[in-house]
């Protein structure tokens, strides 16, 4: 897969006095899907925010395509080719679907290519085409997520940062959206850094995974191998060996190996 497109080294990010990221290093190869798993408050979103420039790290470097981008303004980062799909979608509810999508292309100057991309996006999410003139606020949760991903795509990014695309969606929709993410990755060559709590789907879609616990990476491996790990099975996939009594409430100690 060649040199990593994104390399993060020793990142430390604070919320006021609280250290949210306690020295995290990882890399994302070009054209790969890499996932970061973790519970609430593990620091997953903070990592994405730090990469996309919404937050500035206290320490550490973020290298994108050979260039250090930590602490850069978000608009500059976007221009460099990183699109952030934030948690909770964050679209503009009173703008139409089409206007939302055009907001995604705000940084671009190549007008006719934008038009072609609009069609491309509609190709991936036909339902958005039908709702092009509706206000984005009237879309269902799944449609809003599709819109958020499409809007990011409209910037023609080299890399997309996806923050919990499965949040609040029905299982069937989650499956659908993840299939499209995989297609976008395959067909458009967009590198994806995916943050998820739904470990099952993330590990099946991604190539490589990191597990984050309270601001530190505790485990990393190819997703196929992560799926076989005992701790992943019990704590992230909810697969438990049942005890002699048939049920079990107590948890094993996490060892991360």
């Amino acid at each position, binding site marked *: 897969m060649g040199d990593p497109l994104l390399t993060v080294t020793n990142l430390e990010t604070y919320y006021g006095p609280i250290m949210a990221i306690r*020295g995290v*290093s990882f890399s994302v190869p070009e054209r790969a899907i890499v996932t970061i798993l973790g519970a609430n408050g593990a620091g997953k979103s903070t990592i994405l925010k730090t990469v996309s420039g919404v937050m500035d790290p206290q320490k*550490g470097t973020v290298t994108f395509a050979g260039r250090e981008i930590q602490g850069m303004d978000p608009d500059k980062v976007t221009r460099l080719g990183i699109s952030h799909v934030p948690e909770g979608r964050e679209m503009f509810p009173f703008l139409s679907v089409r206007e939302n999508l055009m907001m995604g292309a705000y940084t671009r100057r190549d007008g006719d290519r934008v038009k072609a991309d609009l069609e491309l996006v509609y190709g991936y999410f036909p339902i958005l085409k039908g709702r092009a003139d509706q206000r984005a606020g009237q879309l269902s949760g799944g449609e809003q997520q599709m819109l958020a991903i499409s809007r990011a795509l409209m910037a023609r990014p080299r890399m997309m940062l996806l923050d919990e695309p499965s949040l609040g969606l029905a299982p069937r929709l989650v499956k659908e959206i993840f299939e499209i993410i995989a297609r976008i990755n395959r067909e458009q060559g967009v590198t994806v850094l995916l943050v998820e709590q739904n470990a099952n789907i993330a590990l099946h879609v991604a190539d490589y995974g990191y597990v984050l616990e309270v601001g530190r990476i505790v485990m990393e491996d190819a997703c196929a191998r992560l799926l076989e790990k005992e701790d992943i099975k019990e704590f992230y996939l909810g697969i438990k060996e049942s005890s002699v009594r048939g049920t*079990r409430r107590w948890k094993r100690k996490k060892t991360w*190996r």
Partner: protein
Amino acid sequence: MAVTTVYGQDTVAKLFRHVARERGERVAMREKHLGIWRAVSWRDYGERAKRVGLGLVALGLRPRDVVSIAADNCPEWLYTDMGTISVGGITNGIYTTDAPRQVEYIVNDSGTRFFFAENEEQLDKILESRAACPGLAKIFVFDMDGLHGFQDPQVMPFEALLDLGARYDVEHPGAFDAMVEIARPEDLAILVYTSGTTGPPKGAMLSHRNILFQIAYADYITALREGDQQLSFLPLCHIAERTVSVFNPLKTGATVNFAESIDTVPDNLREVAPALFFAVPRIWEKFYSAVALRMRDATWPGRLAYGWAIGVGTRVAEARLAGRRPSLARRLLYRLADFLVLDNVKRSMGLHRARGTATGAAPIAPELIKWYMALGIDMREVYGQTENCGLATAMPPERIKLGTVGIARPDTEVRISPQGEILLKGPHVFLGYYKNPQKTAETIVDGWLHTGDVGVMDADGFVRITDRMRDIIITAGGKNVTPSEIENQLKFSPYISDAVVIGDQRKFLSCLVMIDPETVAQFAQERNVPFTNFASLCRTKEVQDLIAGEIERVNKQLARVETIKTFRLIEQILTAEDEELTPTMKLKRAFVSKKYKDVIDAMYTGA
């Protein structure tokens, strides 16, 4: 004749009944429940223990039946322990970290009839193995959380046992008092299984007399009064914690506070601020590392003040070690250093009220004891083993020789055999191994307990332990090396939590190192060393260099043949559940040497 009665009582059962009556409403122990420390009086302690004992009798317990307890430290552990002993039964602790098949082995080896499980997790272990435990009659559960819908004819909640005991008491008045009289001083009281680093665990038999003899000297380290606090957190299955937290308070009346868990020990320690604190070297090393790291991050005036104060403290400690009284000026300076700095350091650890502290159960670096002495903490090294019911030697208050484990405790003898083995004699020597006359005969010869430790004794009777008999390394060149001395030096580094020196039948010495995940991660982070998980942290050049530097520091203090030529890191965070570690978190040499054979061989072929 040695003292083997306490308050005129000659068995643990009688002593417990006596003090529970005498002390009444005074506080025996505290347990934190939903964030609040709740007290248990001696009267309640006595009453609940009695109900446990009588409940077991109602269910068919006969004198000398074995009762096993698989629970972390909690009041119920003590109720069960004292209750069982009171009615003539024998208690045996099982480590909560033991795997089901280890539990099965101990239950069968000891012939356990009644099993007490702390909670669902421990219950599952015994349920898994009970089909292979024909002697087991009944299982009790302390904490029924998550077991509401669970019904099993062999399993009973602890509360139900207490009710049963209370009913039995009403129906058979006076029965309990008669049972307390059953045991004779020379009778077996408890079984303590020793962690088998070689072969299966063996059950050491300790008598009432053994225990009372130790209780009689409960004040040996520091005199405790009623109202003094202690913190209990080391496993009660271990004889040292059992003596300190269960037996000795029968004499001293000190209040035992149970730590919430091993992770909360530093917090609980600050809350309790005990008068006496006993810990294993690993804990002392951790406290020291925490202060050392905190001082490194401190502002420069802070570092300066700390450096000055520790300097003053060290000179006072050195004077004490040399048997001199420091000059008046120095004593005044020390008062100032204590007031300005040292007292705060002690407060941050929760040791500002500690009149006495002790370290034992594993070797410790003398530098570490000196550091605590410099803080003004009276730390004494003690030595002993399960087979002598705890204390065998201790550092006397009037004369401290660092690097030794002190002198034989009163009314006992210590001798060094021609082979260099430490031998013990006295009323503390155990009865033997349970149902294992052969091992017993190997261990007690002509009344002398063969400890398996190698050591020397100086003219003043101070004992210095060099190593375990079977751990001594003989290099290919024929040189005898005592690995634990080197390992202790290594462990003094804040970055190394344990190490195993290897070199038996080999050309040179090497070692396997278990790094401290916290301090090393902090080290890497400060220097911008990228790493992801623990294994990648171990592999970074900077960490390898760091540990190499620590080993070099130790090498400088060693003779030429003894230096460590190469090392490898253990690239996994080990927990007490892992077989590599004993329940007290020491690396098992034999097991580690076998498990990491490939890694070890690579050190000798590659070099």
